[in-house]
């Protein structure tokens, strides 16, 4: 398995969410916009200078900060 944090994916990569780290509040917030364990996602954009990431999950785009992305563990599709 290629487990890594979401923040390390490259633009265009696809991956499956394996686990969410962080507190209950954080987990609830990201799950409620569709970032749940088992979901397939695609890295749409990575902004420079530690800027935000944009991922697509279930046909929807979500902007997420790098710090939050580090708490989302994914397995990259090969």
């Amino acid at each position: 398995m290629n487990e890594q944090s979401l923040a390390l994916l490259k633009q265009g990569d696809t991956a499956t969410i394996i686990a969410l780290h962080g507190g209950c509040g954080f987990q609830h917030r990201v799950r409620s916009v569709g970032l749940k364990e088992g979901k397939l996602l695609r890295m749409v954009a990575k902004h420079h200078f530690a800027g935000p990431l944009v991922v697509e999950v279930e046909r929807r785009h979500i902007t997420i900060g790098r710090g939050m992305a580090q708490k989302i563990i994914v397995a990259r599709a090969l």
Partner: protein
Amino acid sequence: MKTILLIGDPNVGKSVLFSRLMGVDVIASNYPGTTVDYLKGRMNLHGEPVEILDAPGTYSLEATNKAEEVAVSLLDQADVIVNVVDATSLERCLLLTVELLEKRKPVIVALNMWDEAQHLGIHIDVRELENILQVPVVPTVAITAEGIKELVRRLDEARISERPRLEGEDQVWTEVGHIVRKVQSVAHRHHSVWDRLSDATVQSGTGWLTALGVLFALFWLVRLVGEGIIRYGVEPVFDLYRLPVAALSGWLGPGFLHDVLVGTLINGKVDYVQSMGILTTGLFVPFGMVLPYIIAFYLALALLEDSGYLPRLATVTDNVFHKLGLHGHGIIPVLLGLGCNVPGVLAARTLETRKQRFIAATLVSVTVPCMAQSAMIFGVLGHYGARYILLVYGTLSAVFILLGLVLNKTAHGECPELFLDIPPYRRPSLLAVTKKTWMRVRWFVAEAVPFLFLGVVVVNILNALGIIEHLARHVAPFMQCWFGLPGAAVPALLAGFLRKDLAVGMLVPLALSPAQLTIAVTVLTLYFPCVAAFAILLKELGVKDMLKAALAMILTALLVGGILRLVLM
């Protein structure tokens, strides 16, 4: 009277659905004790009046912010719940649906964006969904009003679901997964050209190009519509108005009352910009110069919001705003502030931390020119070509960034990361855009115009009593040596405390050089906002932070004015 509550995730077309149900009789209410607004209206349901509330969007009943808390607490007032669900994002929306069913209140589900779901190859078995949820489910397309009649017809069928209760969050998620697997099937679909274009608008390089293009188009539209309203709406009315004003002027004769009401005659005639009377300049500036652009601006902003571009703009600009202690959401107070600083400062409330709210409110009130200020900038410098106008806006932008950098370093507190759900691009509904524009313009006329009018009254009385002249004599030497402005310009700068836009009429007759006018206009825009914005700043930030903001304003105005003088003269 029965109360019906519309509740759903953000960006599911809830507001469009609301405006479909409502007539024009809609009011925005502030939820007591909070800073969150929700919409309220009345409609006739089978001959009986009912009240409809439009709750702020929420993903879940476990609220994570103020707006969501309001949505949840509105539930208590509801007799019937209309849960608006986005058919293209069923899984995500069902979390709220399942939570709502647990509340044991009558629920009906509007499966909105039905056409879009079909277009995307998403098939949802509505019958099966009704069976599982045990409440009516009606497919709707709010934007074309499809299914709305059916929804209204079946409102009475809303009922309390008798499903077994779920224990804990895990069970809720599992249940949502079950339901989706049973009722939804998605045809596989390739990434289309349109999808790629949509991606490009949030990616680094292309995203910035798009942002610049969109903002340029926005201001082009504001100008086009604003000028159109002036040419075909405002000018003819004020031309007709000349007759009664001239008659009044003749009847009053020279004196104190004439000075206050009609003002000074320019070449024996009333000049709407320069006369300064309450009934001439006092009416013309707010209604003839500022309001047309306010209408145009709110229209453009509503289009920007309803097309789904705003969160993308926030994403692309996040990098820059982060350096200023804000995040991409900071673009919203700035954009609103370009219309009127008051809603701009109010919008700072939506930011998460106190530090962010302080920085946003200060930046908006110091560096963002409102429509009245823009009217002044164009009114004073318009004759000298685009060069000077660009110089003013360029200076303001530079100050925005520099002041933001400084405030970020000096203010205490945190700035959290951006976390945004980006809805797909959608064609804005004409109805929703018109209503949104109308409500904001109505707010401006009711809340801000009285201040504009009061400003003229106070300036006129101070002027007629010679107080401004007296003050001007004392400050003049300083203004002369620091800003390089003649003593005659000082009254305009002083009156600017109350009304920036009045300064046009006071500066124009002075025959200043373009460089002097540029300095005067920039300083006027930077230092104290109008009385209304000042009051809001005090209310939002409290005395201590407001004084800090005021200090930042004075220092910035002095520094920038001094530097411009060195550079330009």
